């Protein structure tokens, strides 16, 4: 694979993502893995379905990488997001950021997952024992056009 930002129907190998950011000048690599969690707010998830606007999603992942490389010197980023049907503990997203020092690696990798949840056209549908629903920010409008997530958005788990 040549791309650093990709949408895939296959299981994600975290190592593939990490390998893309290994550099001689990198002393730190922070990765983030988003996995399918069984319980959310006490409700049991059976499985998830992810859908993406694939071509645009890859562009937006690349945009996040460009934002990171503009903000943190010598940062290199790779992101893979899986779509289709995912079981509990399956990896939905894997992010790797390498930087010379550790503080920047953590900051940038946190920034990446927050931005993914903000601007990348991917949707998940949760399936429970008693139904299913497309998940989204139903209560508040999300501003997709801003450059940076707000403090409050950064805090949400």
């Amino acid at each position, binding site marked *: 694979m040549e791309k650093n930002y990709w949408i895939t129907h296959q299981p994600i190998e975290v190592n593939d993502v990490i390998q893309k950011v290994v550099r001689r000048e990198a002393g730190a690599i922070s990765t983030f893995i988003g996995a399918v969690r069984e319980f959310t707010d006490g409700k049991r998830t059976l499985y998830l379905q992810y859908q*993406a606007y694939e071509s*645009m999603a890859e562009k937006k992942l690349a945009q996040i990488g460009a934002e990171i490389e503009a903000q943190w010197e010598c940062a290199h980023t790779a992101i893979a997001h899986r779509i289709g049907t995912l079981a509990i503990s399956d990896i939905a997203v894997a992010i790797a950021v390498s930087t010379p020092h550790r503080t920047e690696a953590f900051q940038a990798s946190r920034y990446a997952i927050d931005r993914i*949840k903000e*601007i990348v056209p991917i*949707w998940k549908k949760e399936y429970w024992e008693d139904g299913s629903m*497309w998940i*989204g920010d*139903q209560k508040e409008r999300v501003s997709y056009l801003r450059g940076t997530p707000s403090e409050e958005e950064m805090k949400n788990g």
Partner: protein
Amino acid sequence: MVNVLLFAELQEAAGRDQLTFDVDGITVKQLKDQCLSTYHLENIDYAMVAINEEYAEEDALIYKGDTVALIPPVSGG
């Protein structure tokens, strides 16, 4: 013709993944109104619009041949 891609809840509400409109030079707002009146996509108010894979404001113009997508609140990650 302008193709409008649908995803997630909007795709299920419309029962298809694409709509086609014979329009040229209308605004995003006008297109959303047409989707609402013709297909009763009630959640469209919460959706962003992308023109040729880039988010667009309500007053951006859509021309013949553009690929438009309705983007409900995203939930990746």
